[in-house]
């Protein structure tokens, strides 16, 4: 039973990691790519950790530490990347219907 739940979590994690990778290809600019990349890969990694926790129950305390570390560091690195791109002068992509409007361009 534990084996099945663990495998299910690993599969879900892999699915989210795949969606993150697909997002990297499909999104139009660097900010949207960071968006899909961060969220999908963070939850994907957490699912992997949960899956490993079910397969090897004696490791769960250390898996909690790894998960906490991921949750704190991965958004920080994404924000740092996005901030660097904005400061470097990369303009966020706008949807066609917004391009002529008076909305702030960042």
């Amino acid at each position, binding site marked *: 039973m534990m084996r099945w739940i663990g495998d299910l979590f690993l599969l879900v994690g892999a699915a*989210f990691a795949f969606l*993150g990778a697909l*997002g990297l290809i499909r999104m139009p600019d660097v*900010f949207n790519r960071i968006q899909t990349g*961060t969220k999908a890969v963070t939850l994907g990694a957490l699912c992997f950790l949960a899956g490993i926790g079910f397969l090897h129950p004696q490791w769960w305390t*250390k898996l909690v*530490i790894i998960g906490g570390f991921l949750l704190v560091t991965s958004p920080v690195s994404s*924000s740092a990347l996005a901030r660097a791109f904005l400061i470097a002068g990369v303009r966020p992509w706008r*949807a066609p219907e917004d391009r002529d409007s008076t909305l702030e361009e960042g």
Partner: protein
Amino acid sequence: MTEASSRMPQYAVSFAAGMLLWVLLTGTLQGQELWAGVLVVGVTTALAGPRLEILAGVRLVPGAAVSLVTYLGYFFYALARANLDVARRVLTPSLPIRPAVVEVRTALTSRLGRLLLANSITLTPGTLSVDVRGDRILVHWIDASPGTDLESATGAIAAGFERHIRGFLR
């Protein structure tokens, strides 16, 4: 308030976090291991405590632990929703995104509180914190159709988290 007592929260939080890390790393609650942990974490806290000013924003009030737990619950719910949202947008052939960079305002005053809020915003549906300037957080929003002025963006992005975070951080 004296200098020593104003630093009590950061020592207490540092000690509690250190003990939690110790118990998770050793993976046991046996007496001997715990006492060794108290010794090691106690020395670490005494040495590092004065430098941990970032922890001074923690509010040591009776309801803080409850707020932390409800915040974590809300956070994981938002994280799951964020991923389903991303999955939907990536898999829809027409790629339904309408991004804009907006500002949101936060009532949190401590550095730790603002960091936690910015991190939470990054991991939730369609939003990515880009920069923090004073009480304003610059957010890249993947679907800005609800409106990009300060008030509506704040209400849609930050208000939910802020309500939970304010229970245990300034």
